[in-house]
Every structure is written in C-alpha cells, then in structure tokens.
C-alpha cells in the first residue's frame, strides 16, 4: 500500500483542523447510517451518498459567512450537514417522516432550509445552476455582498443550461462560485467517455470566468482555493469556477452495482487519498490531537448519528391532510 500523501502543510490551527475532521466524519457516519437504513427499507426511492467527497463541501463551507447561500444537486446530504442543518431533520426526511425538513414530502433529493440559506436539493441534472445564479442575482440586486455556492457534478457540466448560465453570470458579474464536484463518473459513464475536456474548469475561459482545479481529497487545499474564490466574488468581480477533483466510494445511488469501475480503483483511492484519514494523520503526526481525542470525536459523532436515526424512525409519517398542504403560498 502506497503511503498516503499529505503534501499540504497545515495552514490552520489545531482547533480548526479538528473541526474539519469532525465535520467530515459527521457526513461519513451519517451517510453510512443512511445506507444502512436504506438496506432496512426505511429509506425509499433514490438515495445518493456523499461518501468520499466530504472534503469538498467541508472545505468550502469553512469560507462562508452568515447569509451566503448554497444550492446543489440530488447528492445533497453532505451539504446540508456542513451548513449546519440538523441531522435529525435530514435523516427524518430520508425516512419520509413528519419531522423531516420537508415534512416528508421532498425526500433525499429535495430538502431546503431558509434559516441556513440552503436552497436544495434538486433532482434535475443541471437545473440548479441557473437557480444558483438567480440567487446571486437577488443578492446583487439587493446590494449586499453575499455569495452563492452553486455545486454540480461533472455530469451536469455537459448540460446546455450550465453554459447559458456561465454566459449571463459573467455578463452581469454575478457573485456566484460554481463548484464542479468532479467525482469522475456521471452515474456509470466516466468523464473520459462523456466530456471533451479533461479539465472542466477551463470551459469557463470561453466566458471570461476564472477558475482552477483543486485536489478535492485534501480539505485544506479545498479551503484555500475556496477562500480565493469567495474573495473574488465578494469583491464584485463576478463568478469563479472551482473544479474540485474528488471521488465517490459508493455507487451513483443505492441501487447502482457500480460495475463500470474496478474494486481495485475504489480501494486505491480509499487507501491512498481518503480525505478523513488524511486529516487524521495530520492531527496525529503533528501532535495536534491524541488517539483519545479522536476517539472522543468519533464517539460524539456516533451519538449524533444514532440519535438522528432514532428520531427518523420514531417521527411519525406525515398526517394524511399533508397531501393537500403547501401546494400554494396563501396570497
């Protein structure tokens, strides 16, 4: 087994590093639990897990300020946890219960939180990209200096509306960070087989949008690149593209047997590049934390996740009257 490369020098405090570790671990354990509840039939339909990609959203969220907005695709559980949404409410939405963020009416792919400025959770590939630019347009119009993080995948990057949006975002200098979470597979089709350019961020150049590729398995690299992108947007210079090269360990959704890649390929990334193990090594080797400290964090996370699972099982199904509510906002 090749040694895990921790080339990045730690440019954060021990406390920050521990926080990043904790936030990534919460997503991983939460997703593992979601996978388990799916297996038990408690979660239905489609369920897309974020395992492997945790450093992307955690690294970027480290740069946000109150009022900044975020919007993503259907692989959205990690984004919700990272922006501070309650794991209980997220898990209960997965089980389709009254206590879920959408009262059980949205499910895994459609959750929202006005309070945390999380605008979904969208099931149509690419559709969230103009929606994110629209949120940014509202902030620009209202004259605040808030930024919108618009996440999408390498698969969505081939949708026409993404480029319609790039054009308008650049034309109008909208404060939006386009985060391409390139996990290398659009469902079962590898990037090589679907995408003409190896570095997707370079497509922004055609619209005059600056961008860069980032190692998405290293949370500190993501955080640093995110800081630059956010500063660019917040200062009114218009959009910025971050292509974060990442990897999902699980199938596209729970029902994907993932026969389009080898077990060895997945195993190699897990062993050599895992974003959580990477930080764990940094914490231990830099003596920022002891094994016991980390065990305590593990325990804390385990408790949060099992509490969320209990809540998600115990929360009742929505009342039948809920079928007819929330279709319209009362005029």
């Amino acid at each position, binding site marked *: 087994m090749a040694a895990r490369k921790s080339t990045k020098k730690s440019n954060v405090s021990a406390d920050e590093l521990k926080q990043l570790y904790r936030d990534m671990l919460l997503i991983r354990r939460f997703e593992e639990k979601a996978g388990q509840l799916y297996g038990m039939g408690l979660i239905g339909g489609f369920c897309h897990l974020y395992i492997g990609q945790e450093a992307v959203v955690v690294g970027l969220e480290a740069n946000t300020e109150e009022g900044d907005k975020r919007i993503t695709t259907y692989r959205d559980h990690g984004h919700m946890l990272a922006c501070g949404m309650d794991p209980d409410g997220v898990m209960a939405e997965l089980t389709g219960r009254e206590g879920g963020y959408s009262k059980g009416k*949205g499910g895994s792919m459609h959750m929202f939180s006005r309070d945390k400025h999380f605008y979904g959770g969208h099931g149509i590939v690419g559709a969230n990209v103009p929606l994110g630019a629209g949120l*940014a347009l509202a902030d620009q119009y209202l004259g605040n200096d808030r930024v919108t993080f618009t996440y999408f995948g390498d698969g969505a990057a081939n949708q026409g509306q993404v480029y319609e949006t790039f054009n308008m975002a650049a034309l109008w200098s909208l404060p939006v960070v386009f985060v391409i979470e390139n996990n290398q597979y659009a469902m079962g089709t590898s990037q090589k087989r679907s995408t003409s350019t190896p570095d997707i961020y370079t497509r922004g150049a055609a619209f005059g949008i600056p961008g860069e590729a980032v190692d998405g398995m290293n949370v500190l690299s993501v955080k640093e690149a995110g800081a630059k992108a956010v500063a660019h947007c917040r200062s009114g210079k218009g959009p910025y593209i971050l292509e974060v090269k990442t990897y999902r360990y699980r199938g596209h959704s729970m029902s994907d047997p993932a026969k389009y890649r080898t077990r060895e390929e997945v195993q190699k990334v897990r062993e050599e590049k895992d974003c959580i193990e990477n930080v764990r090594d940094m914490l231990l080797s830099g003596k920022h934390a002891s094994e016991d400290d980390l065990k305590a964090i593990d325990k804390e996370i385990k408790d949060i996740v099992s509490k969320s699972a209990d809540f998600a099982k115990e929360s009742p199904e929505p009342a039948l009257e809920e079928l007819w509510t929330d279709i319209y906002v009362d005029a």
Partner: protein
Amino acid sequence: MPTEILMPALSPTMEEGTLAKWLVKEGDTVSSGDILAEIETDKATMEFEAVDEGTIGKILVDEGTENVKVNTAIAVLLEDGESADDIGETSAPAPAAEAAPASVPAAPVAAAPAPDAPAPDSSPDWPEGTEMKKMTVREALNAAMAEEMRADETVFVMGEEVAEYQGAYKITQNLLEEFGAKRVIDTPITEHGFAGIGVGAAWGGLKPIVEFMTWNFAMQAIDHIINSAAKTNYMSGGQLGCPIVFRGPNGAAARVAAQHSQDYAAWYAQVPGLKVVQPYSAADAKGLLKSAIRDPNPVVFLENEILYGRSFDVPVLDDFTIPFGKARVVRSGEDVTIVSFGIGMQYALEAAEKLAEDGVSAEVIDLRTLRPLDYDTVIASVMKTNRCVTVEEGWPVASIGNHISATLMERAFDYLDAPVVNCTGKDVPMPYAANLEKLALTSTAEVLEAVKQVTYR
C-alpha cells in the same frame, strides 16, 4: 450487544434476493466500508458493505441461498470484548411492517370541488359609476407593470428585448427609461437559462416578471416553470414559495406557422403549484397582471398578440386588481351557456350577438383564470340554461373544454339537456397557408353550429 446484519434492500423495489457469495468468514474482523457479501437483486449483483466495526461472529445464511427476504438476519457482528457465546441476545431488528408504508391516501378533503350547490361570486369588478377610459391591451399590460414596479422595489422585468428595444411587442415600452437597467434587464436568447435565473431570484427575495417573447420559446424553459417554480414549495414543506410571473404572447398570431402558433392553456392549467391566467379584455389584462405580480406563487400569464392592439374600457382607479379564480359573466342569457377565455371570447361574443338576432339568448362566461378555475360560476349558469358550449383556440385532446365538460357531468349531470360541445382548434400543427390557417382555428360559425347542436335547433 451483538448486532445482527440484515439482508439489505438494494433497490427501491427489492423485496428478496440471492446471497450469492460471502467475502468474509466467521472470525474475520471488519470495519466500515469493507465488502461483506455479494447479493443478487432482480436487476444486478451488488456488493454489500459493512457499516459497523467488529468481528463476524456467525454467518446465519449460507452463500447460494435464494429468495432471502429483505431484513432477514444473515450474520451476527460482535463488538470488542464479545464472543460467539453472546449471540442470542442480539439487537432486535427493525419491525419489517414499518418498512412498507402502504396506507391508502385518504379521499381528497380540501381540494376537491364541493358537490353542493354552486356559490358563484357575482360581485362587480369595480364600483358602479367608476369612470372608464379606452385603453389597448398593450397599454393596460404596460401600465400594470409600471404601477407595480413603482409600488415595490423588488419587482423587476427580464427577457429578450424588454429594455433597449422597448419590447418585441412593445409591452415594456418606456420601462427602461423610468426604472433603469437594473430593473429592466435585457437577456441573451437563452430561455432555459434566464427562466432558471428568474426562479432563483424569486427565492432570493425578488419578484421577477419574466417575459417570453412568445410562449412557444418557453418550451425550452418549461422544466424551470414546472419542476423548479411550481413544485418547490410543496417539496420544501412550504418553505420556498416562488413569487414570479412568466408572461408573453400565447397561441396563434397570424401566418407564423406551427412552431409559433400554439395555445398552452391546457398544458399549464394541469400543473398544481402554478396559477394560470389568460385574459381577454384590457381591464382584465391590467387587473389580473397586477394580481399576478403581487401573488406569492408562480403565475403563468398567457397573452395574445392579436389582442394587444384591441381597445377596451378600463376603469380609472388608482389601484385596481382582479382576483384569481373569479370568472366574469360578460353577457347574461337564458338558453345556452358559452364558456371561453382569451381570444376565444371574440368568437363567443360574436356568436352571442348573432344568436340574439335569431332570438336565442346566450350567457357568455369569460373564465379569465384557468387555475384556479371558477367552477361555480359555470355550473350555476348551466343549471339555469341546461346547455353548454366551450370555445378555445387550443388543441382538442385534453383541452380546457374537455375538463369543463367532465366537471359538468360530475356536478350538474341532471341539469344538462344536451351533451356539452367543445369548439377547439383542429387536431393539426398550425399550417402557414392563409386558408388552411383559418380552417385550423375555431370560428364564430363553429360556435353557432355548436349552439344549434346543443339546443336541438
């Protein structure tokens, strides 16, 4: 306490599967993410991963076993310090019954039309004696937007040619001059993209008016109108309403052929979460557009190019709106009810005029809004006349007229003296040739013929 590893459901429809192969054996240590077994579902062979850490204490189902039900214990996992002797006091599996929610939804309680007697709202749209002024539909729409933009800083217009060109059909004339480029935004020709940006802006606290040069081009944007704008409030449990107006000319114009001549009334009227408006007169255009801009929900506002230049009386009032869901009885009558909306009203009214000359008294109803639809006014009228003809320019299959007919059958069957007749556009793409185009649309003559049919004359 030892943990049971249960047969997982690996697809939304899986109820049982084959335990094809164990990749661990008793005594092996496993950690989260390790592959435990291969399981064949009806669709594929899937790898099944460990969630918890521990030692495989016992394998309960041998590899090769078929038809293993989901949630059956297939192995037992021991934690640190436990041994095979502890097996037997395993954690209880989740009750399987909970996993299969199959309760039948209750019959609609709130949204279904009441089967009772209709209670139409026949209040006047404005006080009697109000001063009236002639205005074109174009001027009325323009005035509605300007008034609402003056009243609310968050209202803005975006679309192709809405600003510097002054509107492809001059509906946004002079708005740029008064409100500036921040609030009157020229977009590139990119309907899909700017419709999505409009919806995002609405979630972000603004009240966008998105102009489509024509509704034909909005087919490129229909995903955002339906999936993003109409459904999100429901999907968010009521957190994310979308106060947006999508507007522009709809239906056939003149000699622009199939791609530029389609009435979308029935398409959009089908979608819960949308409100759908199709005005005929200038007064309704103004009052309904003002209501649309103020409404906290997405509104599809279907105008008509041919009507833009027509003049109507419009009340001179500082602030005048027409509520949604209120049809207007434009002409009272006793012998037959003619229901229409939008440009269909011109055929309905011409026919009523001719019928009057022949001694037939027709009641003409302008629906004005198609969602919500004012069923009560239509039903009350048909209970009086016992006969009904519907008129629209859209295609005949699954038309608004079909829906009205079905509703009358359900709620006023005993009052009908004849089957309802739907006058619609023909079931063809719109031809270019002048004579064929005329044939493809409905007409006053067809309405007269339909009235003859339902009155057995």
